[in-house]
């Protein structure tokens, strides 16, 4: 049944533009979003093409060989993979407890004013260029490690292979320490955000049952925020894996695998930065590009594992993101 209102409803088709603003906006933003994928694929493509001579010559051996000899054109990535993983692991070993501990203090215990001031300083620390960290490491940390810390470690644990050998000052441990300082601000500020996002009702529920402040923080607040804290750890790890300049300055540049943490080593990022300008032959530069591909794959792999862990912990129903 036609109502009078339906009869007089005006038609607006005449004023409709060819393409509406919404559609235009959608097309534009899609283009920007698609760029991300295009750039990533272009990057992988270039690494893949650039490394093909080395891939053809060494095959899978590239990943398992620890021989790196530009004179004989023999290249193996294992010392660099080892150095990269070891220094990043050492960095997290130091920076995660420190960073999460500091985040707990800033979000749960400090007065808001102190917390904001300290967080501002921490975020300044995150903005310091890495070459400055490297410089400080060379002039302050390396002598300190060589003259005091490493001899002390040798005295205490010298019988174990982990702390054997001469104290050079440069090496895995020093690189791990400077990386710890560099990842620390990320872990603090992201963990603090995660802790502050825990609803006050959660804290009060625990306190109202007779929990102490510490019990409430440790048993309720921290588990609630664990996804965010895990996120901060992986953000720190991503930075540690790819960090180039500061590590290059203190790692010792030795393409070999040493059991001792005090020994000099090498990381993937450091060897690329150091040797690219002097990579004369085709195979040499191709091997360096393949190292780049390995680092890319390593980072992707670790991020993938991180995402998987997050999905699994969420599925268990432990915490909502």
């Amino acid at each position: 049944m036609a109502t009078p209102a339906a009869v007089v409803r005006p038609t607006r088709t005449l004023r409709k533009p060819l393409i509406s603003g919404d559609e235009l906006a959608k097309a534009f933003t899609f283009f920007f979003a698609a760029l991300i994928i295009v750039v990533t694929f272009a990057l992988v493509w270039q690494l893949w093409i650039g490394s093909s001579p080395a891939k053809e010559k060494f095959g899978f051996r590239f990943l398992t060989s620890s021989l790196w000899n530009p004179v004989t054109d023999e290249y193996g990535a294992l010392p660099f993979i080892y150095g990269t993983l070891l220094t990043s692991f050492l960095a997290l070993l130091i920076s995660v407890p420190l960073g999460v501990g500091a985040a707990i203090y800033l979000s749960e215990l400090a007065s808001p004013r102190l917390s904001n001031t300290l967080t501002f300083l921490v975020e300044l620390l995150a903005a310091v260029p890495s070459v400055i960290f490297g410089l400080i490491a060379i002039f302050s940390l390396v002598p300190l490690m060589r003259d005091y810390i490493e001899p002390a470690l040798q005295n205490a644990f010298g019988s174990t292979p982990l702390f054997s050998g001469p104290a050079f000052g440069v090496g895995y441990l020093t690189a791990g320490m400077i990386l710890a300082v560099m990842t620390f601000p990320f872990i603090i500020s992201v963990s603090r955000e995660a802790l502050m996002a825990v609803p006050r009702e959660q804290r009060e529920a625990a306190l109202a049952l007779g929990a102490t402040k510490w019990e409430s923080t440790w048993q309720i607040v921290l588990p609630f925020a664990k996804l965010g804290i895990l996120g901060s750890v992986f953000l720190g790890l991503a930075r540690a894996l790819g960090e180039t300049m500061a590590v290059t300055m203190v790692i010792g540049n030795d393409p070999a695998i040493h059991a001792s943490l005090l020994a000099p080593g090498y990381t993937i990022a450091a060897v690329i930065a150091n040797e690219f300008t002097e990579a004369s032959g085709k195979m040499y530069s191709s091997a360096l590009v393949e190292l780049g591909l390995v680092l890319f794959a390593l980072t992707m792999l670790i991020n993938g594992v991180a995402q998987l862990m997050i999905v699994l912990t969420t599925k268990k129903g432990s915490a909502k993101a």
Partner: protein
Amino acid sequence: MSTSPYMLPEKARHQDAPSHGLSINDMFPTAIPHSAGATTAVLQPLTAKMKTEHVNFYYGKFQALHDISLEFASNKVTALIGPSGCGKSTFLRTLNRINETLRDTRLEGSITLDGENILDKDVTEIRRRIGMVFQRPNPFPKSIYDNIIYGPKINGMLKGKNAAEIVEKSLRRAALWDEAKDKLHESAYALSGGQQQRLCIARALAVDPEMLLLDEPCSALDPIATAKIEDLLVGLKSQCTIVIVTHNMQQAARVADTTGFFLLGRLIEHAKTDIIFKNPSKKETEDYITGRFG
């Protein structure tokens, strides 16, 4: 004008009078033995489980509570009503000292539980004895079982006791056992809002509190879930003393034995619930319950 025995004397109606209610024994005169020959067992004087005297509370420089003196009768439900921002929640949160976890707050006056000043006692013990249920359901991101067992665990109440028994008993007391018994180890978030709130009540009951404070426990729930919780409260009062803050006057009328009316940080009136709703002694109370403001 009525001459109800529950009405305050004219002097107390003055604006500057300290806000305090009647003594609970004035409210329940039948509970006082009238003659030596009384034989009925129920003729016991009511005891005050908790008593606040001249409580002032400050958020920074802002005074949120003005001179509140109030008695909570043992095994009764006391409702606190009043418009938003009147201080009823603040007052409730001083009773288990949870408000002192907020920064820059100050409490004056005394609050006694069984005659002992709670401000002098160990705060975790006080909070164990006085349970609290919050406005929005706030289960921990754990299983139903772990939610209940958390309180007994931190209070060292599991020694020589069967944890599963505590869980079952608490869920039964909160009328949630039948709905939850088959999914004890599933996430508490799998429950509906009303079930989550009953889980929070069960969690509070698991540590055997002597008092239960509820801060607008049904404001986020639908009418059916609300009715379940109200039934539950009436059933629980034989085991503990209940204080409920509500902005729903019908709820106060349904569940509470006595009701206190708060306005602008003051306790205007505290009397038996039917007196408050049928024959309040203060004009402010009457205006509020007749819907003239708030």
